[in-house]
């Protein structure tokens, strides 16, 4: 199904509430600090016992950045001192050893991701070392058929970096661009030329990377419909396979560096909506498929294909084609999804060092999902990935009667149906073209924890 999208300003304004992005369900807010090392170890080991253990997905968090981008909500460490990387990497190697001892060697690493921060902050020699340690400890694929990706800041990478990364086994790359407009770039303290971005993409093409992804943000200071239209045009000329257009949420109390952004420079809500409308019209007109949330992809990109085949899933990086992996997150703040659990590493390097050198998996919180959580996660994943939910599928997988179990939720959805977000009958929920942009709101109906957290206002606005 190619998702047709309708931009309905009325509806969007009405449903503009706070809501999670559902890169996990339950969301990280629900993670509990009583979940510790021992819980994680037991669960990790037990996944080896399954008749067909899931393949592995490895995430490495490389937190360092040379300069700060004011908008940034990622977990990062700003430093000019490159020497900071070495001791962190030593600890990361320790964690790799600890983690890998928990998993059987016949479990193939289908998916691997370096995220940040800026993963390419580290030197070429360090990149090779990190990959070597990973290869020694886990069974990486050697046939280039895994999904091995890296977040790349074009200001911190050149053609040599790209060549090296390819030789290390990476085959997908995700570039931070955000906006090409000089005024916007100045306002967010991220000066990045088109030329350096193009050089990186050309190198990626030359070295046969299978997918090139560009990150943009709308709602940044000094942005207008016209300025962002120019950025989009330049982005299209670069020909990425996927484009994410994230929504900037201004929450300076939570993300301190956002205080550097002058609130008066932010586009007004209507302007912001107009930008979004233009993004959707322009990208679809240029032949990109709307995947969902903030993601667009070329129709022949594997995300679009996975969506067509009904195998698309959601993970911490957004959408993914590998539904069936146990995810091991390594490095500070990294999140793992192993067995029926989520767990998260400590945020702080000092803490991390203390735990890792004591031989402990540096987990500080997590959650074991119960049957209800698993059921709701399944529902939310279906909706957010496929805009369609067949009750029968859920009923056979979870042994419930959908209409009985979700009696209250369905009555709320009926209201959304009257508003034109979706259609619901005895067998399925179908998100309408006008509801696609509000799929977070629809998912939120099934989020049993939301009511208590909503009061705390910890989430960003949905649009």
């Amino acid at each position, binding site marked *: 199904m190619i998702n047709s999208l309708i931009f309905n300003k009325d509806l969007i304004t009405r449903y503009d509430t706070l809501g999670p992005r559902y890169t996990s369900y339950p969301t990280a807010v629900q993670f509990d600090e009583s979940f510790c090392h021992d819980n994680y170890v037991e669960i990790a080991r037990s*996944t*080896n016992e*399954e*008749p*067909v*253990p899931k393949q592995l997905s490895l995430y490495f968090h490389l937190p360092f950045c040379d300069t700060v981008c004011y908008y940034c909500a990622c977990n990062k460490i700003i430093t000019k001192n490159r020497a900071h990387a070495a001791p962190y990497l030593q600890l990361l190697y320790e964690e790799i050893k600890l983690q890998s001892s928990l998993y059987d060697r*016949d479990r193939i690493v289908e998916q691997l991701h370096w995220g940040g921060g800026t993963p390419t902050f580290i030197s070429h020699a360090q990149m090779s070392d990190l990959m070597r340690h990973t290869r020694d400890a886990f069974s990486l694929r050697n046939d280039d058929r895994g999904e091995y990706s890296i977040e790349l800041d074009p200001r911190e990478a050149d053609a040599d970096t790209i060549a090296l990364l390819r030789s290390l086994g990476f085959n997908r790359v995700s570039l931070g661009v955000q906006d090409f407009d000089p005024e916007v770039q100045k306002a967010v303290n991220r000066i990045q030329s088109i030329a350096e971005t193009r050089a990186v993409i050309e190198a990626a093409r030359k070295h046969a990377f299978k997918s090139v992804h560009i990150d943009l943000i709308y709602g940044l200071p000094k942005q207008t419909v016209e300025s962002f239209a120019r950025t989009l045009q330049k982005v299209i000329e670069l020909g990425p396979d996927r484009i994410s257009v994230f929504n900037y949420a201004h929450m300076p109390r939570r993300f301190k560096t956002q205080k550097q952004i002058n609130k008066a420079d932010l586009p007004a809500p209507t302007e912001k909506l107009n930008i979004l409308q233009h993004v959707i019209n322009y990208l679809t007109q240029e032949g990109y498929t709307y995947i969902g949330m903030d993601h667009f992809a070329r129709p022949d990109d594997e995300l679009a294909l996975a969506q067509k085949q009904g195998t698309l899933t959601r993970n911490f990086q957004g959408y993914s084609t590998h539904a069936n992996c146990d995810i091991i997150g390594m490095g500070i703040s990294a999140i793992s999804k192993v067995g029926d659990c989520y767990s998260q590493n400590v945020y702080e390097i000092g803490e991390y060092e203390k735990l890792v050198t004591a031989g402990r998996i540096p987990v500080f919180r997590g959650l074991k999902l119960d049957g209800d959580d698993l059921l709701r996660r399944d529902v939310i994943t279906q909706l957010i990935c496929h805009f369609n939910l067949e009750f029968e599928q859920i009923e056979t*997988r979870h042994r419930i009667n959908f209409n009985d179990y979700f009696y209250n939720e369905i009555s709320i959805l009926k209201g959304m149906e009257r508003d034109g977000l979706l259609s619901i009958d005895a067998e399925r929920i179908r998100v309408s073209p006008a509801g696609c942009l509000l799929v977070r709101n629809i998912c939120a109906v099934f989020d049993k924890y939301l009511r208590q957290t909503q009061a705390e206002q910890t989430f960003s606005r949905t649009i």
Partner: protein
Amino acid sequence: MSSTHQIFDISKFKVSCGNCSLVELCLPWGLKVDDLNELEKIIKRVRPLQRGDYLFHTGDKFQQLYAVRSGAIKAYRTTEEGNEQILGFYLPGELLGLDAIDTEKHVCTTVALETSSFCAVPFTRLEELCQQIPGLQHQIYRLMSRELSSENQSLLLLGKKSAEEKIATFLVNLSSRLHVLGYSSTEFRLPMSRQEIGNYLGLTVETVSRIFSRLQKDKLIVIDRKLIKIVNEHGIRCMCTGNKESSSKSRSATGH
């Protein structure tokens, strides 16, 4: 509850075989009510075991038989090279220790795969009781015979040629034992690990996983972590005898 400080002693708990759902599979089957009462008097409920706890070790003095009430048990012997060789898995309603009557020493080690509970039957008292209750003697013979025949079954299983036949037979065997217990025969959780299945069947773990995923790909079973759903019962039965043709025929019959 009058006293909250009293420690709950499970062994003082009066056993009531009459109310036990396993009565048909266990010692009391066919006994008259009076005889049943006598038997209940000698049976003790023992403290439940957690996953990884041992029931008895090889070489322990044999004193009582154990009837599994709930859970799952693995029985193994340690080889001369120090490796574990799994002899079998025990489910509720099955008796442990029958193989020790001869030498009066346990000849295998038993460990709980999940939380498990048991009834213990002191063997000398059981023998005495058999003098008084002829039906009980007969029931013991029956249970021994059942044990022998299941031993034969596992010899047949291990003698199978292909790994596929072994695993299909293993699943069918588990399924029918669960069925007798009144559980679903088509949907069950494997209490043992793939390593243990491999050890028992003489297959490597890689082979075990390869065969399980093939059975899933061929739409005979659906696997969700340790949960197994048999979706083509006929197909998997055919596979036990290495009869692939009819299993693939039934596959095409279901439209795949």
